[in-house]
Protein backbone atom coordinates (compact mmCIF):
# COMPACT_ATOMS: atom_id res chain seq x y z
CA UNK A 1 0.00 0.00 0.00
CA UNK A 2 2.73 2.41 1.02
CA UNK A 3 4.70 1.39 -2.06
CA UNK A 4 1.68 2.06 -4.30
CA UNK A 5 1.20 5.47 -2.67
CA UNK A 6 4.83 6.27 -3.33
CA UNK A 7 4.63 5.06 -6.95
CA UNK A 8 1.42 6.96 -7.77
CA UNK A 9 1.48 9.40 -10.66
CA UNK A 10 1.10 12.29 -8.20
CA UNK A 11 4.06 11.21 -6.05
CA UNK A 12 6.12 10.73 -9.19
CA UNK A 13 5.31 14.26 -10.33
CA UNK A 14 6.15 15.75 -6.91
CA UNK A 15 9.61 14.21 -6.71
CA UNK A 16 10.35 13.84 -10.41
CA UNK A 17 9.40 17.27 -11.70
CA UNK A 18 12.03 19.94 -12.14
CA UNK A 19 9.40 22.55 -11.34
CA UNK A 20 9.91 24.71 -8.26
CA UNK A 21 6.17 24.28 -7.73
CA UNK A 22 6.46 20.60 -6.91
CA UNK A 23 8.60 19.28 -4.05
CA UNK A 24 10.39 22.55 -3.06
CA UNK A 25 7.12 24.49 -2.76
CA UNK A 26 5.41 21.75 -0.74
CA UNK A 27 8.42 21.61 1.58
CA UNK A 28 8.36 25.40 1.95
CA UNK A 29 4.60 25.36 2.65
CA UNK A 30 5.34 22.87 5.43
CA UNK A 31 7.81 25.36 6.94
CA UNK A 32 5.36 28.28 6.55
CA UNK A 33 2.71 26.20 8.33
CA UNK A 34 5.23 25.30 11.04
CA UNK A 35 5.97 28.98 11.64
CA UNK A 36 2.23 29.73 11.95
CA UNK A 37 1.38 26.77 14.22
CA UNK A 38 4.30 27.03 16.60
CA UNK A 39 4.40 30.84 16.37
CA UNK A 40 0.75 30.94 17.48
CA UNK A 41 1.37 28.34 20.21
CA UNK A 42 4.39 30.40 21.38
CA UNK A 43 2.29 33.56 21.80
CA UNK A 44 -0.53 31.60 23.50
CA UNK A 45 1.89 29.92 25.94
CA UNK A 46 3.65 33.21 26.75
CA UNK A 47 0.26 34.80 27.47
CA UNK A 48 -0.62 31.95 29.85
CA UNK A 49 2.77 32.38 31.54
CA UNK A 50 2.02 36.05 32.22
CA UNK A 51 3.50 37.92 29.23
CA UNK A 52 1.12 40.40 27.58
CA UNK A 53 -1.43 40.27 30.41
CA UNK A 54 -3.22 43.29 28.90
CA UNK A 55 -4.14 41.31 25.79
CA UNK A 56 -7.85 40.50 26.36
CA UNK A 57 -8.84 36.83 26.56
CA UNK A 58 -11.41 37.17 23.74
CA UNK A 59 -8.71 38.55 21.43
CA UNK A 60 -6.37 35.68 22.28
CA UNK A 61 -9.02 33.27 20.96
CA UNK A 62 -8.25 34.61 17.46
CA UNK A 63 -4.69 33.34 17.81
CA UNK A 64 -6.11 29.81 18.06
CA UNK A 65 -7.67 30.41 14.61
CA UNK A 66 -4.16 30.94 13.21
CA UNK A 67 -2.99 27.85 15.07
CA UNK A 68 -5.61 25.63 13.40
CA UNK A 69 -5.06 27.25 9.99
CA UNK A 70 -1.36 26.47 10.21
CA UNK A 71 -2.21 22.96 11.31
CA UNK A 72 -4.45 22.45 8.25
CA UNK A 73 -1.62 23.65 5.96
CA UNK A 74 0.82 21.23 7.57
CA UNK A 75 -1.54 18.29 7.66
CA UNK A 76 -2.06 18.70 3.89
CA UNK A 77 1.58 19.39 3.01
CA UNK A 78 2.72 16.72 5.46
CA UNK A 79 0.51 14.08 3.85
CA UNK A 80 2.11 14.85 0.47
CA UNK A 81 5.64 14.77 1.92
CA UNK A 82 4.76 11.40 3.49
CA UNK A 83 3.23 10.01 0.30
CA UNK A 84 6.32 10.62 -1.83
CA UNK A 85 8.56 8.76 0.63
CA UNK A 86 6.02 6.53 2.38
CA UNK A 87 7.99 3.30 2.73
CA UNK A 88 11.05 4.99 4.22
CA UNK A 89 9.16 7.38 6.52
CA UNK A 90 6.74 4.75 7.87
CA UNK A 91 9.72 2.78 9.11
CA UNK A 92 11.58 5.76 10.54
CA UNK A 93 11.38 5.76 14.38
CA UNK A 94 12.07 9.52 14.59
CA UNK A 95 9.05 10.16 12.33
CA UNK A 96 6.79 8.23 14.72
CA UNK A 97 8.33 10.20 17.62
CA UNK A 98 7.53 13.45 15.77
CA UNK A 99 3.89 12.41 15.18
CA UNK A 100 3.48 11.44 18.84
CA UNK A 101 4.95 14.75 20.05
CA UNK A 102 2.62 16.68 17.73
CA UNK A 103 -0.44 14.68 18.86
CA UNK A 104 0.29 15.35 22.54
CA UNK A 105 1.08 19.03 21.87
CA UNK A 106 -2.23 19.46 20.00
CA UNK A 107 -4.21 17.90 22.86
CA UNK A 108 -2.42 20.19 25.32
CA UNK A 109 -3.12 23.30 23.20
CA UNK A 110 -6.82 22.36 23.03
CA UNK A 111 -6.84 21.97 26.84
CA UNK A 112 -5.17 25.36 27.27
CA UNK A 113 -7.88 26.84 25.05
CA UNK A 114 -10.54 25.33 27.30
CA UNK A 115 -9.16 26.15 30.74
CA UNK A 116 -7.38 29.48 30.14
CA UNK A 117 -9.34 31.02 27.25
CA UNK A 118 -12.78 29.45 27.68
CA UNK A 119 -16.00 31.34 28.34
CA UNK A 120 -15.40 31.31 32.11
CA UNK A 121 -11.92 32.86 31.79
CA UNK A 122 -11.79 36.58 32.50
CA UNK A 123 -8.06 36.98 32.07
CA UNK A 124 -7.42 38.29 35.55
CA UNK A 125 -6.10 34.97 36.83
CA UNK A 126 -4.64 31.96 35.08
CA UNK A 127 -5.25 28.53 36.57
CA UNK A 128 -2.05 26.97 37.90
CA UNK A 129 -2.37 23.83 35.77
CA UNK A 130 -2.65 26.01 32.64
CA UNK A 131 0.84 27.30 33.41
CA UNK A 132 2.32 23.81 33.54
CA UNK A 133 0.48 22.93 30.32
CA UNK A 134 1.99 26.03 28.66
CA UNK A 135 5.50 24.95 29.69
CA UNK A 136 4.78 21.42 28.41
CA UNK A 137 3.52 22.89 25.14
CA UNK A 138 6.71 24.94 24.60
CA UNK A 139 8.90 21.88 25.28
CA UNK A 140 6.80 19.56 23.09
CA UNK A 141 6.72 21.90 20.08
CA UNK A 142 10.49 22.44 20.29
CA UNK A 143 10.97 18.66 20.52
CA UNK A 144 8.63 18.10 17.54
CA UNK A 145 10.68 20.59 15.47
CA UNK A 146 13.92 18.83 16.44
CA UNK A 147 12.44 15.41 15.58
CA UNK A 148 11.22 16.75 12.23
CA UNK A 149 14.64 18.16 11.38
CA UNK A 150 16.40 14.97 12.43
CA UNK A 151 14.26 12.99 9.96
CA UNK A 152 16.76 14.15 7.35
CA UNK A 153 19.64 12.59 9.28
CA UNK A 154 18.45 9.50 11.20
Amino acid at each position, binding site marked *: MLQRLQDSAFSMWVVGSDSLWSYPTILTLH*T*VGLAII*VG*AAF*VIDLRVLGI*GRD*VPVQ*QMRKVFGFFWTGFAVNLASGLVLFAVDAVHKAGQPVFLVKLTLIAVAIVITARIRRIAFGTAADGTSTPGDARSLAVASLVL*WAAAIIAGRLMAYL
Partner: protein
Amino acid sequence: MYGFITWLESTGVSTALRNTTWVWPTCESIHFIGLTMLIGAAGFFDLRLMGFMRRVPIAAAKSFMPYGIAGFALNLVTGTLFFVMRPSMYAFSAAWWAKVFFIILAGLNAMLFETTLGARVLTLGPGEAPPTSFKIVGCVSLLSWFAVLYFGRMLPYIGTGN
Protein backbone atom coordinates in the same frame (compact mmCIF):
# COMPACT_ATOMS: atom_id res chain seq x y z
CA MET B 1 34.91 38.43 -2.54
CA TYR B 2 35.86 35.09 -4.05
CA GLY B 3 39.16 35.28 -2.17
CA PHE B 4 37.45 35.93 1.15
CA ILE B 5 35.06 33.01 0.67
CA THR B 6 37.86 30.59 -0.21
CA TRP B 7 39.91 31.84 2.75
CA LEU B 8 36.99 31.51 5.19
CA GLU B 9 36.20 28.00 4.01
CA SER B 10 39.81 26.97 4.53
CA THR B 11 40.16 28.35 8.06
CA GLY B 12 40.55 25.95 10.96
CA VAL B 13 37.27 27.10 12.56
CA SER B 14 35.25 26.50 9.40
CA THR B 15 36.83 23.11 8.76
CA ALA B 16 36.53 21.93 12.37
CA LEU B 17 32.84 22.93 12.65
CA ARG B 18 32.02 21.44 9.26
CA ASN B 19 33.62 18.14 10.18
CA THR B 20 31.97 17.82 13.60
CA THR B 21 29.06 15.48 12.97
CA TRP B 22 26.14 16.97 14.92
CA VAL B 23 26.90 20.70 14.63
CA TRP B 24 24.94 21.21 11.40
CA PRO B 25 21.70 19.37 12.40
CA THR B 26 21.79 20.97 15.87
CA CYS B 27 22.10 24.45 14.39
CA GLU B 28 19.28 23.65 11.94
CA SER B 29 16.97 22.59 14.77
CA ILE B 30 17.74 25.77 16.73
CA HIS B 31 17.28 27.85 13.54
CA PHE B 32 13.77 26.39 13.05
CA ILE B 33 12.83 26.95 16.70
CA GLY B 34 14.11 30.54 16.48
CA LEU B 35 12.05 31.25 13.38
CA THR B 36 8.83 30.18 15.10
CA MET B 37 9.60 32.52 18.04
CA LEU B 38 10.29 35.43 15.68
CA ILE B 39 7.30 34.86 13.38
CA GLY B 40 4.95 34.24 16.32
CA ALA B 41 5.85 37.39 18.25
CA ALA B 42 6.47 39.69 15.26
CA GLY B 43 3.46 38.31 13.39
CA PHE B 44 1.14 39.09 16.30
CA PHE B 45 2.47 42.64 16.62
CA ASP B 46 2.46 43.22 12.84
CA LEU B 47 -1.15 42.07 12.54
CA ARG B 48 -2.13 44.48 15.30
CA LEU B 49 -0.28 47.33 13.55
CA MET B 50 -2.15 46.46 10.37
CA GLY B 51 -5.44 46.91 12.21
CA PHE B 52 -6.44 43.36 13.12
CA MET B 53 -7.42 42.53 16.72
CA ARG B 54 -8.13 46.17 17.50
CA ARG B 55 -9.30 45.40 21.02
CA VAL B 56 -5.68 44.60 21.89
CA PRO B 57 -3.85 47.69 23.22
CA ILE B 58 -0.79 48.17 20.94
CA ALA B 59 1.57 48.30 23.92
CA ALA B 60 0.24 44.91 25.07
CA ALA B 61 0.69 43.41 21.58
CA LYS B 62 4.30 44.59 21.74
CA SER B 63 5.04 42.78 25.00
CA PHE B 64 5.80 39.53 23.11
CA MET B 65 8.48 41.26 21.02
CA PRO B 66 11.49 40.66 23.33
CA TYR B 67 10.85 36.92 22.86
CA GLY B 68 10.67 37.38 19.11
CA ILE B 69 13.97 39.27 19.21
CA ALA B 70 15.44 36.39 21.25
CA GLY B 71 14.39 34.07 18.40
CA PHE B 72 16.06 36.40 15.91
CA ALA B 73 19.25 36.37 18.02
CA LEU B 74 19.27 32.54 18.00
CA ASN B 75 18.92 32.63 14.23
CA LEU B 76 21.59 35.25 13.74
CA VAL B 77 24.07 33.10 15.68
CA THR B 78 23.13 29.79 14.00
CA GLY B 79 22.87 31.52 10.61
CA THR B 80 26.37 32.94 11.02
CA LEU B 81 27.63 29.45 11.89
CA PHE B 82 26.04 28.04 8.70
CA PHE B 83 27.82 30.71 6.69
CA VAL B 84 31.16 30.07 8.39
CA MET B 85 30.82 26.32 7.74
CA ARG B 86 29.84 26.57 4.05
CA PRO B 87 30.47 30.12 2.80
CA SER B 88 30.64 29.19 -0.88
CA MET B 89 27.22 27.52 -0.73
CA TYR B 90 25.66 30.81 0.43
CA ALA B 91 27.74 33.57 -1.12
CA PHE B 92 27.06 32.31 -4.64
CA SER B 93 23.36 31.66 -4.07
CA ALA B 94 20.82 34.20 -5.34
CA ALA B 95 18.28 32.88 -2.82
CA TRP B 96 20.68 33.64 0.05
CA TRP B 97 21.19 37.22 -1.13
CA ALA B 98 17.42 37.63 -1.45
CA LYS B 99 17.10 36.34 2.11
CA VAL B 100 19.71 38.81 3.37
CA PHE B 101 17.97 41.62 1.48
CA PHE B 102 14.66 40.90 3.23
CA ILE B 103 16.34 40.61 6.65
CA ILE B 104 17.86 44.08 6.12
CA LEU B 105 14.53 45.43 4.85
CA ALA B 106 12.71 44.07 7.91
CA GLY B 107 15.43 45.51 10.16
CA LEU B 108 15.34 48.99 8.59
CA ASN B 109 11.54 48.93 8.71
CA ALA B 110 11.62 48.10 12.44
CA MET B 111 14.24 50.82 13.06
CA LEU B 112 12.13 53.37 11.20
CA PHE B 113 9.17 52.38 13.32
CA GLU B 114 11.10 52.58 16.60
CA THR B 115 12.80 55.90 15.84
CA THR B 116 9.98 57.88 14.25
CA LEU B 117 6.53 56.31 14.59
CA GLY B 118 6.99 54.17 17.67
CA ALA B 119 6.35 56.93 20.18
CA ARG B 120 2.75 57.12 18.96
CA VAL B 121 2.28 53.44 19.83
CA LEU B 122 1.54 53.96 23.49
CA THR B 123 -1.00 56.69 22.88
CA LEU B 124 -3.12 54.45 20.67
CA GLY B 125 -5.79 52.86 22.82
CA PRO B 126 -7.82 49.72 22.30
CA GLY B 127 -10.37 49.92 19.50
CA GLU B 128 -8.68 52.85 17.76
CA ALA B 129 -7.91 52.51 14.06
CA PRO B 130 -4.15 52.57 13.40
CA PRO B 131 -2.78 55.31 11.13
CA THR B 132 -1.86 54.26 7.58
CA SER B 133 1.86 54.48 8.43
CA PHE B 134 1.40 51.74 11.06
CA LYS B 135 -0.42 49.55 8.57
CA ILE B 136 2.40 49.91 6.04
CA VAL B 137 5.09 49.16 8.62
CA GLY B 138 3.20 46.07 9.86
CA CYS B 139 2.57 44.81 6.34
CA VAL B 140 6.21 45.31 5.21
CA SER B 141 7.44 43.54 8.33
CA LEU B 142 5.12 40.53 8.00
CA LEU B 143 5.80 40.08 4.27
CA SER B 144 9.56 40.51 4.78
CA TRP B 145 9.79 37.82 7.46
CA PHE B 146 7.83 35.35 5.35
CA ALA B 147 10.08 36.24 2.38
CA VAL B 148 13.10 35.51 4.62
CA LEU B 149 11.57 32.13 5.48
CA TYR B 150 10.73 31.46 1.82
CA PHE B 151 14.19 32.18 0.44
CA GLY B 152 15.81 30.32 3.33
CA ARG B 153 13.82 27.16 2.73
CA MET B 154 14.11 27.43 -1.09
CA LEU B 155 17.86 28.05 -0.86
CA PRO B 156 18.84 24.55 -2.03
CA TYR B 157 16.52 24.85 -5.03
CA ILE B 158 16.76 28.33 -6.54
CA GLY B 159 19.46 30.59 -7.86
CA THR B 160 22.31 28.19 -7.22
CA GLY B 161 23.63 28.70 -10.74
CA ASN B 162 23.22 25.02 -11.58
